[in-house]
């Protein structure tokens, strides 16, 4: 066991006891990166190399010297007896959708490949202020538009540390891959339809989508401004709680950051689940998706292994004293993706208009007649297919003549999705749930290349996560076992607005109860190879 395989919490204790230094922790992570990550994502990767398929490729930019300076400062403070922050000496990676002053902040896109951020996003600034060590920027789907990380302009794209032929999920795939492979104990991701929780499930790590507004979006390169939520990715629930503690809270730079005090997430973490009402919904045990050929809707149960993992978790929580409430209706779950196809595209198109080759980012080197031609050539060369698809759809469904049919209607369907949750969580209602327990994803990690290009099927990977984004409520995905192919299965807890403390508590209770489960002893493929 290397230092880099320990949790942030364990590392914090060792550091405070002066049994290790921050520089030693950093060196351990850098060694792991050198062993497993391979070449970083690049716009000019050339021909694929045979060894590419054997590496994780989480990183776009490694900031080892920045992290080393931070580590040395932590060690100096500790030696001088000065106070240090909650995450002192803990390395973390940052999804390359956050601005970090002085680093390339690319969004995984050619159009921002040369953009060096002049300021730092609030969640990153808070991590660094708490003493955490920023190791670098990790890969993602271009502008976060995807569920597999395959749409990034920076190649090779990340692979799943549990099985290198599989995708890590997305869009925070570099984040979850870096945490699963022991490159860093923590990563900062974003979740607009499931982009933290889905890759967390695929990579066997913990991911939190906080309540909308719980974590500031200042410095986050925007996708869907009413949906985007920055959040923590970690290897266990305690570490995720530690990180949320640091990044959550009001921010004068973001007027949508909720002006609410942040509770002490660690203080209540081990209070257990006795007396809590946790719901199961049949609407989360099936998926509805359009058949590509017939254009009609198919409904299928989710795979038996995934349902079994959820039911096993419910049994464990029941044994711990929770009351499991079966049959909670969430009838509008199936409309989450169709509504998202509209709402997120309108917001994306609006947010992508700013990339025009004028003030920053890529500008076409071709000769042009005028400004309009410069815009067109720049945007054509700078954007990949997925941003183009979102811009075109967003413009179509928000056009004056179609807006009532599409955009206004989708926003009203969003109200129905929100009402499903309000009814389930209503303290005076029929169900009075504290949380809903669901699978995180309809499948485990799929093969690289299996779905990419089919923009409809790819979007349906988010069917069980996107309702929380529409409703604004928090969700957490935690590992709950492995399927027959040895791939991680994630389960999700959803709760009412600002109930992160309760969700963490439930997740922690499950984690403690399964500490000795055989599946917890299985390591990701890349780490098994290192040990061999």
């Amino acid at each position, binding site marked *: 066991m290397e230092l880099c395989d320990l949790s942030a919490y364990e590392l914090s204790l060792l550091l405070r006891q002066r049994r290790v230094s921050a520089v030693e922790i950093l060196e351990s992570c850098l060694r792991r990166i050198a062993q497993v990550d391979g070449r970083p994502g690049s716009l000019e990767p050339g021909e694929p190399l045979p060894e590419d398929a054997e590496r994780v490729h989480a990183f776009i930019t490694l900031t080892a010297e920045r992290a080393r300076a931070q580590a040395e400062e932590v060690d100096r403070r500790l030696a001088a007896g000065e106070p240090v922050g909650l995450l002192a000496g803990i390395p973390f990676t940052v999804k390359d959708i956050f601005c970090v002053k002085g680093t390339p902040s690319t969004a995984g896109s050619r159009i921002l490949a040369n*953009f*060096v951020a*002049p300021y730092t996003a609030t969640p990153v600034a808070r991590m660094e202020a708490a003493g955490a060590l920023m190791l670098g920027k990790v890969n993602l789907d271009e502008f976060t538009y995807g569920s597999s990380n395959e749409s990034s302009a920076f190649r090779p794209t990340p692979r799943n540390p549990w099985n290198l032929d599989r995708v890590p999920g997305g869009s925070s795939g570099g984040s979850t891959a870096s945490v699963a492979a022991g490159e860093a104990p923590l990563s900062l991701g974003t979740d607009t339809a499931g982009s933290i929780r889905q890759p967390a499930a695929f990579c066997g790590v913990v991911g939190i989508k906080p*309540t*909308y*507004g719980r974590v500031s979006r200042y410095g986050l390169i925007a996708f869907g401004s*009413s949906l985007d939520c920055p959040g923590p990715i970690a290897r266990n629930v305690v570490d995720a709680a530690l990180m949320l503690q640091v990044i959550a809270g*009001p921010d004068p730079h973001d*007027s949508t*950051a*909720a*002006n*609410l005090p942040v509770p002490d997430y660690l203080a209540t973490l081990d209070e257990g689940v006795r007396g809590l009402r946790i719901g199961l919904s049949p609407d989360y045990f099936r998926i509805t998706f*359009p058949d*590509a*050929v017939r*254009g009609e809707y198919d409904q299928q149960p989710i795979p038996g292994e995934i349902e079994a993992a959820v039911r096993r978790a419910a049994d464990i929580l029941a044994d711990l004293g929770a009351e499991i409430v079966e049959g909670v209706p969430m009838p509008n779950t199936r*409309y989450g*993706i*169709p*509504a998202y196809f509209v709402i997120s595209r309108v917001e994306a198109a609006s947010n992508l208009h700013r990339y025009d080759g*004028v*003030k*920053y*980012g890529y*500008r076409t080197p071709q000769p*042009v*007649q*005028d*400004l*309009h*031609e410069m815009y*067109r050539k720049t*945007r*054509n060369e700078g954007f990949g*297919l997925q941003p183009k*698809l979102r*811009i*075109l*759809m967003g413009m*179509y*469904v928000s056009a004056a003549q179609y807006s009532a*049919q*599409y955009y206004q*209607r*989708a*926003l*009203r*369907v*969003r*109200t*129905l999705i*929100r009402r499903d949750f309000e009814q389930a969580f209503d303290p005076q209602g029929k169900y009075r749930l504290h949380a809903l327990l669901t699978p995180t994803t309809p499948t485990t990690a799929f093969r690289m290349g299996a779905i990419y290009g089919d*923009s*409809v099927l790819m*979007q349906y990977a988010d069917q069980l996560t996107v309702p929380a*984004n529409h*409703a*604004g*409520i928090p969700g957490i995905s935690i590992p709950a076992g492995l399927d027959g192919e040895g791939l991680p299965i994630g389960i999700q807890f959803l709760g009412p607005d600002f109930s992160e403390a309760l969700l963490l508590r439930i997740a922690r209770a499950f984690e403690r109860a399964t500490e000795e489960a055989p599946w917890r002893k299985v390591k990701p493929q890349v780490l098994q190879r290192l040990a061999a």
Partner: protein
Amino acid sequence: MPAETIDPATFAHLVHLAALELDEAQAEYLRRELNRQLGAIHELEAIPLDDSVPITSHGVPYTPEISPPLREDDWQPFSDAAEILGQAPQVEEGYVVVPDIPHTTLE
């Protein structure tokens, strides 16, 4: 196959509005995927929505209790304007330079 909603003419108009310029292969892929996505979106039309259902533009309601007060409308200089200008593809004497802006001269 579902009906094709976005025909080539509508698509070309969208491409123009979006300030894009696509080669044939891209255009074919994008138009096909747009129509497939619209097929999925059409599911929304089957939902009974009476007039009492309002729109939700944000999941979590912005109440006065959780909304931060507006800050003062103060002018705050950025510490390093040169760093921001340094990001621009073409700059001359503190101005961002762009190609000719199409315009007509008024009589």
